[in-house]
């Protein structure tokens, strides 16, 4: 995936294989690329150039999506991730302020 992100134009499976260490079998590369396509991370123009694979979005775009989910206080986030920084309600914080005599 990093190769597709670094490349400016879409790559053929053979290009990907040549760039990978240990040059894996072309079928292995194709399987991985097709699976990434199934998940929506990789796209190809099935009509004009079906053999060329490109990244759907940049690495930064995906990182932004990931971090957004982790850092925003979406109410359903907690159910998905168990996160270190818990969320205290407004009433609890107010209650604590009162206790501290603020």
């Amino acid at each position, binding site marked *: 995936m990093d190769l597709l992100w670094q490349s400016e134009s879409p790559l053929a499976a053979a290009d990907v294989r040549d760039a990978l260490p240990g040059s894996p079998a072309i079928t292995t590369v194709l399987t991985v690329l097709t699976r990434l396509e199934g998940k929506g991370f990789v796209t190809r123009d099935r009509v004009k150039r079906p053999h060329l694979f490109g990244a759907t979005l940049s690495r930064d775009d*995906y990182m932004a999506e990931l971090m957004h989910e982790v850092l925003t206080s979406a109410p359903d986030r907690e*159910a998905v991730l168990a996160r270190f920084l818990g969320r205290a*309600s407004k009433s609890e914080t107010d209650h604590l302020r009162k206790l501290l005599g603020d």
Partner: protein
Amino acid sequence: MTKVLILGAIAIALAWPVPVLLARARWTMRMPALAMLCWQAVAVAGGLSMIGALWLVSVGAAALLALHLLLNLGLTAVGTSRQRRRHRQLVELLSIPMPDRPGTRLIENEAPVAYCLPGAPRSVTVLSDGLLRLLSEDELAAVVAHERAHVVQHHHVVLMAFKAWRTALPWFPIASRAEEAVALLVELLADDDARQVVSDRVLASAVVAVAGADAAAVAPRVARLGA
């Protein structure tokens, strides 16, 4: 008739005064496990007594309420697992496994982030390099122990159930109070697990360090650790 009155009284008590008292209680900070049990009991008993009381008045209305609650639980479960699957794919794409820590992956990001993704066949702990720079070795151990505790104790399931309860009853303010209270309790329970690994002082400093500007949000936890 008396049956309706008794069940109705129980349902009303569990829908309002009991959860309000529980949300205000101070002992819950000292005994989070017991408090968690109370919230779950109130939620289940409250739902059942409400359905029971309705059943004696009108079977149709009771069945409708039961169906509504179950349907919401199912929908929430499906939505959550879909969101979690997508998140897991993103993590696999963007992070690298940490060779010296099994089951742990590292993401390159400045923000101090630590969390555990529950899932089969095994859960994944995700740490950011911003976090590694921020925390000492001991503090990191505290954070990781805390995260693992969430998954081991199945907190995501509890939170999901309370979320479903809130979305099923949007006009019922107690449901969101309950969800908030439970969200704090799971943090306290995970803190208690982490306290067995590191000292209270180290845990408190890790909590404050990760909270950063959100320090007010973690104040109840830090106060409890005596720091």
